[in-house]
């Protein structure tokens, strides 16, 4: 089994209204249940807005703390899921379900999911 990181990229700015998000959250909940049942679930979670991030780094030998996020941009990781799967095709099938679950009702386009393999443990 390999492990994969499924990152959800979200545009910055105010999130959709709670009424619009409710069906999405319900679908994500069902997907997580299915992941658990299939033995594929490792971890999943949503993140607060990028402005809530703080960056820590060592500069000139001393730890330094700055207001984040680290990468300036119009999109940031809004949440992620870690799964285990036998191969990339299996991981992509889960990612497809996640991408579909995230599409707001009445929309045709959703958020990109980046699928990235973890290095092997040994």
């Amino acid at each position, binding site marked *: 089994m390999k492990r994969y990181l499924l990152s959800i990229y979200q545009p910055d700015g105010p999130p959709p209204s709670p009424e619009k998000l409710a069906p999405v959250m319900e679908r994500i909940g069902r997907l997580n249940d299915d992941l658990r049942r299939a033995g594929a679930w490792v971890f999943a979670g949503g993140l607060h807005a990028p402005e809530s991030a703080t960056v820590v780094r060592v500069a000139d030998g001393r730890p330094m703390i700055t207001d984040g996020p680290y990468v300036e941009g119009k999109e940031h990781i809004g949440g992620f899921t870690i799964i285990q799967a*036998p*191969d*990339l*095709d299996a991981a*992509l099938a889960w990612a497809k379900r996640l991408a579909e679950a995230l599409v707001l009702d009445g929309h045709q386009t959703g958020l990109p999911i980046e699928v990235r*393999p973890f*290095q092997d443990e040994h």
Partner: protein
Amino acid sequence: MNTEHERRAPAAKELEELFRREYGRVVSVLVRTCGSIDAAEEVVQDALAVALERWPIDGVPASPAAWLITTARRRAIDRARREASRATRHRAADWASRVIEPPHEPEGEVVEDERLRLIFTCCHPALAPEAQVALTLRLLGGLDTGAIARAFLVPEATMAQRIVRAKRKIRDAGIPYRVPEAADLPARLAHVLAVVYLIFNEGYSASGGGQLVRGDLCDEAIRLGRALAALMPGEPEVLGLLGLMLLADARREARLDADGSFVPLGGQDRSRWDRLKIAEGQAIVRRCLQLARPGPYQVQAAIQAVHSDAPAFEDTDWRQIVALYDQLYALTPTPVVALNRAVALAEIAGAEAGLTALESVALDEYHLYHAVRGDLLARLGRVEDARAAFDRAIALCPTVVERRWLEQRRQGVA
């Protein structure tokens, strides 16, 4: 010494051909055995080196692929044992056990299955398109990196890096060696066919440089098409692509005149068309019709079949061609299809009708769109407009050979 060298020289060239032909077959089985493309390629190279030594003396074995597979497998076991005696004992031992107990024998249908698996790995949509093409030519076509680099006019180091990176992604991301499941098969197969057709088109209408046709790429694409048709005989689009490539390639010689200038369909010496390829392509189109599951490649093959039926350009059954383009447009509503339909329409309904049909085609950056417009305008005697259209076509044209042809056309407008 000298005479012996002379006697061997043709044999070496023959062997090179044979190695290329068998490479995909052999590597795909060894990928299964070794679990990695790099390891497979290394042991296959070892086996080829042994063959190069032995075959000129012992003669070529009855089944070269089986011989190479057996030899490469033995090498893989040796290597695994050597590895096992080094530090990485645990993993190599695991590898050795897999090598020593191959999942199945490398014979007949099983070999074909392995090749099919590897095609789907090479053409996995998670790989960059140019990497898919390079890997397919390398692993299934048996072309070396230098030859692929020359075919695509990129430095060899760039191509080598592209292939290394793609192989690394296959390993690290866990892209499987597997024929996709039924639900994914249509989309994934369409992708494989697109890669093969891209290789063909790169050869048929080379996208840069001074050469219009790079025949070796056409040959390679047809070879891959034949392999796919043999592996998936029940897939009509696989047959359709093979038929399309054969019928187009039948005209390869006639598309260039003695000076290497481009000759369009209407001006071609049809006695220079390859009758064998046409007969094979037309037989494939008939078989597709029997299967009655039309798709874009089959319809395009049918269009080429209609062209190849006409003894002269004037005899072309344009009505049937327009009808086929209508069918193609219903399947794939792209502007290039609309452009080709307008060309055919002009032959039955006149240049004015062709121009009207062009108005809704959004291909302002495509040189052939302006060439077609220029041609239709010239037929209507609109000289200035025609020249302006050809100017635009010339400015956009990617190949020297086609540009020369367009310049002649522009001068011919009167």
